[in-house]
C-alpha cells in the first residue's frame, strides 16, 4: 500500500512543477485562424540563434533575427544594391563623402564619412550617436572580444567622430567595396561600456546581449525583443522609438523548429504562419508540400548565392589533367538533375557567379551534357581501355574517383546517385562516401582529406571577391594550420593577379572585364565543377505581402517593416 501512496506524491510534484513553471515566451500556439490575430506574425525557423550580440559570431539564424532588431551601416537590398542601413547617404568618391588619402605609412588609403539619420534612438529612447559607433569599433578592434571580421577593424585604422551624427573612417587599403560596412552594428555605450571596461576578455560572456536580451536599449530596429525561450522561440514587439516606417505587425514570434516534418505540421496546424526561406524546409520538401497544399499558401522559390558545387582535389593525379576535368563536366547532365530533382527551381550554374549578379559574364565556357565529347576528352587523356564498364589507362589504372559530401542531406545524396549513374555511362567508377557535416567540414575539406571530389555549397554577398576560395594564398596547409578555404588547391598565377587587381579597381566599368576574365579562367580550368544555384523556399500565407526574398547573405528581415497583411481584394 505504501507504494501506492508514492504515486500521488510524484504526480503532485510533477504537476506543481508544471504549474509553477514560468513556461517561456512561446506564444499560445492555438490553431487560431490568422484572421483573428492580424497583428501577430509567427515564423518557423530551423535553428535557434545562440548569442544575440550583433558583432560576435556569424550564424544564419542570428542574422535573420537581427534584421528585425537592427541594421548595419550598409547592406545589400533585395535588388542586390548596396544601400544605407544606418546612414543618410551612401558615401562614394563621386559624392565626395569618400576621399582618397595617404595612410600614415605612405600607402593609398581612403577616408569615408557616414552620417547617421536624424532622430535615431535606442529602444529605450537614448539617442544613438557616433559615440556608440566609436564604442562598437573599440569593442570590435579588441582581439579579446572575439568579434567577427577582424579584417574590417584592421583595415579601418582610425575612426574620427566629427559630431554626434557624423564620423569618418580611415581605411588603409583602397578597394572597390570601401564604403561597405556590413558587419558594423553600433553598440549602446550607455549599457555596454562598463561591462567592456571591466574585462574585455569576459565581455562576450557578460554582455547584455547574452545576459539581458530583453533590455530595449540594446536595439534600434523596428522591433525589440520582448521575450525569449531559450532554444525555442524569440518574441519581438514593436519598437516605439523606431525612426523609420512603422511596422504593420505588433508582434513577431520566431519559433525554432529543427525537425522539418514537424515544421510542416506546425504550419498546417496554424501554430506558425510561415516558414522562413533562409532557414526552413528543404526544396524537395517544399515541392512536395506545394503539390499537396500549394493552393493554400504563397510559395516562393528564390535562387541566389547559394552555390552548390564539387571541389576537385587537384593533387589527385587523375584530376590534374584538365582534359579529365572537362570530360567530367561533359559527362554530367546538370539540367536533367535540376529538372528531375528540383523541377527546374534550381538553375544550372556555369560558374561561381550567379547570372543575377551584375558582374556575371555570359562569355565563358559552358559544358553541355555530351557523352561523345566526354569520351573524346577521356581518350585524349589516355583513358582508352574499357573493362567491365570501367575506363583504364595504359598503366592499368582504373578511372575510379570518390565523391564525398554531408551525410544525411537527402538532396545531396540523390544528386550523388544521379552523378554516379551518369558517370558510369562514360566509364567512370564513382564511389560515394559521405560523412557527418561536422567531420566533413571540420576535417575532410579543411585538411583536404577528400581524395577526388567534395560536394557542398558556398553562400556569399553580391560581387563577392573570391579571394578566400580561389587565391593560392588561401590553400589550407599544415604550415598555416589548415587555414584558408581554397580546398581544390587552385594555384593559377593569372587568377591570383586578377583577384588582386579586382580588389583595387574602383571603376565598375573597368572591374567588369576583370570579373569576366576570372570567370573565364574558372570555366576553362575547371578546378571546381559547378552544379546549380540553390533556391530557398519561402512558404507564406497568401495574406502576407511585402516580403522580398533576397537570395544573398543580407536577409529578407532587413525589410520587415514593409511586411503586412493584405486580404485578397484589399489594399494594405
Amino acid at each position: 500500500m505504501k507504494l501506492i501512496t508514492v504515486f500521488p506524491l510524484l504526480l503532485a510534484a510533477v504537476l506543481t512543477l508544471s504549474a509553477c513553471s514560468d513556461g517561456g515566451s512561446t506564444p499560445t500556439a492555438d490553431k487560431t485562424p490568422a484572421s483573428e490575430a492580424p497583428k501577430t506574425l509567427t515564423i518557423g525557423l530551423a535553428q535557434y540563434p545562440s548569442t544575440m550580440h550583433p558583432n560576435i559570431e556569424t550564424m544564419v539564424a542570428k542574422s535573420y533575427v537581427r534584421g528585425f532588431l537592427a541594421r548595419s551601416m550598409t547592406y545589400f537590398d533585395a535588388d542586390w544594391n548596396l544601400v544605407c542601413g544606418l546612414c543618410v547617404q551612401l558615401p562614394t568618391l563621386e559624392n565626395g563623402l569618400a576621399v582618397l588619402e595617404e595612410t600614415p605609412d605612405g600607402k593609398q588609403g581612403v577616408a569615408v564619412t557616414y552620417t547617421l539619420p536624424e532622430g535615431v534612438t535606442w529602444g529605450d529612447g537614448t539617442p544613438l550617436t557616433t559615440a556608440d559607433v566609436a564604442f562598437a569599433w573599440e569593442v570590435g578592434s579588441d582581439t579579446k572580444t572575439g568579434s567577427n571580421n577582424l579584417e574590417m577593424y584592421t583595415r579601418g585604422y582610425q575612426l574620427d567622430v566629427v559630431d554626434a551624427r557624423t564620423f569618418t573612417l580611415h581605411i588603409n587599403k583602397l578597394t572597390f567595396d570601401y564604403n561597405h560596412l556590413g558587419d558594423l552594428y553600433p553598440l549602446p555605450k550607455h549599457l555596454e561600456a562598463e561591462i567592456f571596461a571591466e574585462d574585455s576578455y569576459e565581455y562576450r560572456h557578460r554582455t547584455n546581449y547574452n545576459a539581458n536580451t530583453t533590455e530595449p536599449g540594446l536595439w534600434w530596429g523596428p522591433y525589440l525583443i520582448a521575450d525569449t525561450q531559450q532554444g525555442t522561440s524569440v518574441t519581438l514587439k514593436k519598437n516605439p522609438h523606431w525612426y523609420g516606417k512603422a511596422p504593420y505587425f505588433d508582434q513577431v514570434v520566431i519559433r525554432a523548429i529543427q525537425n522539418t516534418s514537424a515544421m510542416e505540421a506546425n504550419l498546417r496546424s496554424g501554430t506558425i504562419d510561415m516558414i522562413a526561406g533562409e532557414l526552413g524546409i528543404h526544396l524537395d520538401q517544399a515541392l512536395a508540400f506545394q503539390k499537396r497544399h500549394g493552393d493554400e499558401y504563397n510559395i516562393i522559390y528564390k535562387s541566389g548565392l547559394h552555390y552548390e558545387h564539387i571541389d576537385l582535389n587537384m593533387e589527385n593525379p587523375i584530376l590534374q589533367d584538365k582534359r579529365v576535368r572537362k570530360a567530367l563536366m561533359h559527362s554530367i547532365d546538370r539540367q536533367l538533375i535540376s529538372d528531375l530533382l528540383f523541377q527546374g527551381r534550381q538553375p544550372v550554374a556555369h560558374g561561381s557567379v550567379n547570372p543575377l549578379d551584375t558582374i556575371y559574364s555570359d562569355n565563358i565556357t559552358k559544358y553541355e551534357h555530351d557523352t561523345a565529347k566526354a569520351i573524346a576528352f577521356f581518350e585524349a587523356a589516355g583513358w582508352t581501355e574499357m573493362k567491365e564498364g570501367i575506363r583504364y589507362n595504359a598503366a592499368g589504372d582504373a578511372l575510379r574517383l570518390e565523391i564525398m559530401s554531408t551525410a544525411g542531406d537527402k538532396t545531396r545524396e540523390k544528386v550523388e546517385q544521379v552523378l554516379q549513374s551518369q558517370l558510369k555511362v562514360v566509364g567512370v567508377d564513382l564511389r560515394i562516401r559521405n560523412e557527418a557535416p561536422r567531420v566533413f567540414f571540420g576535417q575532410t575539406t579543411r585538411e583536404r582529406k577528400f581524395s577526388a571530389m567534395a560536394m557542398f555549397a558556398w553562400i556569399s554577398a553580391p560581387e563577392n571577391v573570391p579571394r578566400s576560395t580561389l587565391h593560392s594564398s588561401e590553400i589550407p596547409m599544415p604550415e598555416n594550420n589548415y587555414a584558408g578555404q581554397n580546398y581544390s588547391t587552385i594555384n593559377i598565377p593569372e587568377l591570383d593577379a586578377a583577384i588582386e587587381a579586382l580588389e583595387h579597381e574602383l571603376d565598375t566599368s573597368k572591374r567588369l572585364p576583370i570579373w569576366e576574365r576570372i570567370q573565364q579562367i574558372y570555366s576553362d580550368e575547371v578546378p571546381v565543377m559547378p552544379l546549380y544555384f540553390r533556391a530557398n523556399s519561402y512558404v507564406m500565407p497568401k495574406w502576407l505581402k511585402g516580403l522580398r526574398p533576397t537570395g544573398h547573405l543580407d536577409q529578407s528581415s532587413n525589410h520587415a517593416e514593409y511586411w503586412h497583411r493584405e486580404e485578397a481584394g484589399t489594399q494594405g
Partner: protein
Amino acid sequence: MTRFLLMRGLQSLVVLAVMSFVIYGLIGLMPGDPIDLMISSDPKMTAADAARLRTLYGLDIPLYERYWNWLLSALSGDLGYSRLFGQPVLDVLFPALRNSLMLLGTAFFMAVVIAIPLGTLAAAKPRSATDYSVNLLAFAGISIPSFWLALMLIMFFSVTLGWLPAGGIAPDGSSFLENLRFIVLPAITLTIVSIGSYSRYVRSSMLEVLRQDYIRTAKAKGASGRRIVWLHGLRNAMIPVVTILALDFGFLFSGALVTETIYSWPGMGKLIFDSVMGNDFNLALVALLFATAVTLLGNLLADLCYAWLDPRIVVGGDET
C-alpha cells in the same frame, strides 16, 4: 548503512571523475571545432581571423591541458560559460532541466501507473484474452518509433482536430491548463513508448512470483485471488522492476532527444545534443555529468528500495 552510503558515494565520485575525462576527451577528439563551423557559413572569414578565434576560445592548446584547466575551474566552483549561448552554464542548464523533468516526469509517472496494473492483470490471467491484448499493446508500444508516433499525434490532434498545439512550451505566466495543453502530446508519445517495456517487465516478474511457495501457501490459507495478486505478489514482483525504473530515473534528467526535437520542447536531450555538436565543452560536460550523477543516485535509491520491498535484503550486508 552509513558505511555502505559512504562507499557508494566514494565510488560515485570516482565514476564521475573518470566520466568527466572520457566525455571531455571524446568531444575533443571529434573532428572539427566551432571555428570550422563558422568558416563553413562565412566564406569571407580569413585565415588570420580563424587563427585568432581559435586562440581566443583556447582551441589551440592540447586537449589534456584544456581538460586540466576546466577541472581546476570546476573544482573552484566555476563551471564556466556556455560557448553556444554565451551564458553561465547553470543558467542554461536549469531551465532545460526543469522542462525535461516536467515532461519526462509526467510521462514516467503515467507509464508506471498504467504499466504496472496492465502487466499485473496480464500475469494474473496468463494466456487469456486480457493477456493477449496487453501483450499486443506492449509490443505495439515497443515497436512504434517515437518520431513517427509524435508526427501522427501532431497530424491528428493539431492539424486535423486543432485541439492541441503542435509544439513548443506554454508562454510566461500561463495557467495550469495552458501548460497542460502543451505537455499532453509529448507526454503521451513518451508514455506509449514506455508502457510497452514496463508492462512486459511487470508481467514476467509477476508470473515468476505467482509460482512461488508462499503464494501457494496464501492460496491454501484461503486468501482471495485479488489479495494474493495485489498484496503478496505485486510487492515482490516489483524488485526487478525497480531496477529498470532506477535505470530510467537518469533518463528523466537527460532528456528525450527525438521527442523534444519533434515537439520543439527545450529540454535536456536537445540541449546535450546541441552542445556536443556545437563543441560547447562546458555545457556538454556539466549536462552529461549531471545525468551520470542522477543515474548513480537512481541506482542507489534502487538498492535502498530492495530492502524496503523485501526485508530479507540487507543493504550493505554480506548476505542477502
